[in-house]
């Protein structure tokens, strides 16, 4: 089916958009303008994300402006002005000082969307420590692995997660983890498991951010790889330039906006756009603690008078399931701009927005490594439903072909599929994979960052997502590495081999499915299937664990014994199995550590 482009009329927009003429904005774009929009630390002491997000507003006219409104699961509301957010994050920074935590040390946060999490994030950045968020639906396995890989020194979490995720047990294996700060216990448990409220009460509300070089490390986000361990993508403080600028153009933030980013700060969207960008703009940020609930979400849009809403395809498709006319049942008159990220937004969903919300939904594309939105649909630019849009001003994106000789060739003819590549140099680009320089280096070929996504570009310059170039599974908007899942299953006594793939799903994109072959003494059964489902959930957590298990003898393997996930997937989807020798070669290249990017891709 052909989808008609969605035209925009400037006259019909309630608020004049920040980006009126795309081509003109790209042509005249200048990073110096972005620098001027931010303040910098006083006395030329550098650039710090938390200062731009909070302190500069707290010491100016927006001091008493509502910065963050937190909506609790049970209906509680907690409000923070910029002044109070500054004070609270100062206290947290002082807590870190008291504990002897230094610049560059890694502070991990593991919590649902509670105010303490936001305060800890900002306080960590103020003390120029490196923040590493963990998704609260991770099980003990992914948590311990990331804490170990990132040499975490402090973990901020809740009592429930501390118990359920067995943090006390894993501490014996984590020698660098000195302190666990619990957000909801009144008193210290022992000399290293401490009450955060007690520490905060004793800490001073005054804090001076130390000099912060723009290239100082700030954020560490783990993302899944195809093989081996998760990769820790490292971002620096000057990423804030890009957070600010991209929210200006791609989210069209204006100072009086009420902005709701539904992403969890366990993922990069939830930090770049769920904390940093909106606060840098001085807007009011809505944070909802509860998990997705369609009726609740419409209520929040209405009651909080949300003007700009950044959400995900998974949620939009859930809202589409509700057979109702949201504009008739809810007052959404304040809502002005909707954007979506996490996986490609299908054209049906874009048009559902037009028909039911009376607003188109603006898809955009980026990834953990890019730190911010790279390609987007804009308020004043025509939308081509299904397309991720066009690169932000200041961003050069191209389709490239990876050549056998290890070089790339830029594809000049439109509509040809290839690797989506970006010209490095923007401020929020990752500066490394933690402890893995080689893997970082492999992401760059001939002066291009190779994203790992396949795409094409049409005649008008719009980009269209095609697929992943590797085996990484995209489920409910986040990445799951098949290796991590396979490794957990292999620890079960009955499992001989495991191959994990993503199976397409209309709501969450892909569902994690494991093919399992059993050791000779074991027979497939419903009991064993349930046991393996539970085994995965207990170790990996619900966000990563396989939801489907299929028993299969003799999983397809390469000559060297590597399980061929692509063949499993082709069979699952009923696709042609393709040239088996290519499949084998492809799997072997990945195994031998040949460039991640230069892997053969099946047509």
């Amino acid at each position, binding site marked *: 089916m052909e989808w008609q482009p969605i035209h925009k009329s400037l006259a019909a927009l309630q608020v004049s958009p920040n980006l009126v003429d795309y081509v003109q904005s790209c042509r005249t774009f200048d990073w110096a303008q972005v620098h001027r929009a931010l303040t910098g630390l006083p006395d030329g002491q550098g650039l710090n994300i938390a200062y731009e997000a909070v302190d500069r507003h707290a010491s100016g006219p927006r001091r008493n402006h509502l910065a963050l409104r937190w909506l609790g699961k049970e209906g509680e509301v907690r409000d923070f002005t910029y002044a109070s957010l500054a004070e609270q994050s100062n206290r947290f920074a002082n807590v870190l000082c008291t504990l002897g935590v230094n610049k560059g040390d890694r502070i991990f946060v593991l919590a649902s969307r509670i105010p303490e999490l936001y305060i800890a994030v900002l306080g960590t950045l103020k003390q120029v420590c490196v923040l590493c968020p963990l998704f609260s*639906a991770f099980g003990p396995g992914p948590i311990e692995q990331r804490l170990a890989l990132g040499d975490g020194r402090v973990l901020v979490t809740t009592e429930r997660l501390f118990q359920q995720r067995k943090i006390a047990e894993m501490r014996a294996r984590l020698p660098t983890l000195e302190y666990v700060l619990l957000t909801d216990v009144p008193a210290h448990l022992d000399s290293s498991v401490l009450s955060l409220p007690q520490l905060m009460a004793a800490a001073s509300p005054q804090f001076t951010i130390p000099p912060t070089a723009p290239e100082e490390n700030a954020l560490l986000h783990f993302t899944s790889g195809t093989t081996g361990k998760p990769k820790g993508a490292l971002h620096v403080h000057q990423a804030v330039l890009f957070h600010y600028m991209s929210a200006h153009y791609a989210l069209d933030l204006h100072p009086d906006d009420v902005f709701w980013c539904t992403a969890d700060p366990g993922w990069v969207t939830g930090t770049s756009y769920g904390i940093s960008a909106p606060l840098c703009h001085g807007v009011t940020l809505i944070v909802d603690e509860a*998990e997705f*609930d*369609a*009726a*609740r979400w419409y209520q929040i849009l209405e009651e909080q008078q949300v003007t700009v809403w950044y959400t995900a395809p998974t949620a939009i498709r859930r809202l589409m399931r*509700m057979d109702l006319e949201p504009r008739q049942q809810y007052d959404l008159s304040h809502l002005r701009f909707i954007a979506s990220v996490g996986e490609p937004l299908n054209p049906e969903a874009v048009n559902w927005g037009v028909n039911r919300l009376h607003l188109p939904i603006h898809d955009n594309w980026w990834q953990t490594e890019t730190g911010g939105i790279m390609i987007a649909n804009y308020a004043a630019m025509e939308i081509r439903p299904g397309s991720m849009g066009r690169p932000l001003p200041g961003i050069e994106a191209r389709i490239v072909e990876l050549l056998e000789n290890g070089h790339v060739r830029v594809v000049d003819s439109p509509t040809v599929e290839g690797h989506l590549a970006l010209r490095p140099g923007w401020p929020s680009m990752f500066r490394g994979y933690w402890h893995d320089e080689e893997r970082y280096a492999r992401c760059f070929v001939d002066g291009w960052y190779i994203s790992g996504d396949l795409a094409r570009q049409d005649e008008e310059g719009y980009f269209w997502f095609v697929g992943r170039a590797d085996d990484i599974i995209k489920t409910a908007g986040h990445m799951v590495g098949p290796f991590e899942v396979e490794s957990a299953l292999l620890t079960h006594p009955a499992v001989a081999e495991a191959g994990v793939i993503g199976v397409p799903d209309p709501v969450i994109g892909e569902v994690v499915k494991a093919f399992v072959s059993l050791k000779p003494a074991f027979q497939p059964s419903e009991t064993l299937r349930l046991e393996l*489902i539970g085994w995965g959930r207990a170790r990996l957590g*619900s966000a990563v664990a396989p939801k489907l298990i299929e028993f299969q003898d003799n999983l397809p393997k390469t000559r060297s014994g590597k399980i061929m996930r692509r063949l499993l997937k082709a069979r699952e989807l009923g696709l042609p199995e393709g040239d088996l020798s290519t499949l084998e070669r492809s799997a072997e290249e990945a195994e031998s550590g040949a460039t991640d990017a230069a892997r053969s891709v099946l047509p």
Partner: protein
Amino acid sequence: MNAVKNFGPKELRQIVLSQLHGLAPEADLSTLRPHDDLRETLEIDSFDFLNFLIALDQEVGVEIPEKDYGKVGTLAGLMDYLLVRLPEAT
């Protein structure tokens, strides 16, 4: 159309627990209290919860529209919701 069966609260509870067990086999359902948040306590994500309610519909013949998901977040809430809507046995 689903087969209409005559469920009492006890049978219904058994069906609900059995479906929950399928989603979170590692959980000890005997410790689940009537007003616990099912998704949080059992760590069921919204995708699993959706499939759980669809499977329940197939078994007991009560369709729970997305807008009512907020009412069925606990065992007690879910049981109340289902009991008044069960199809009449003929």
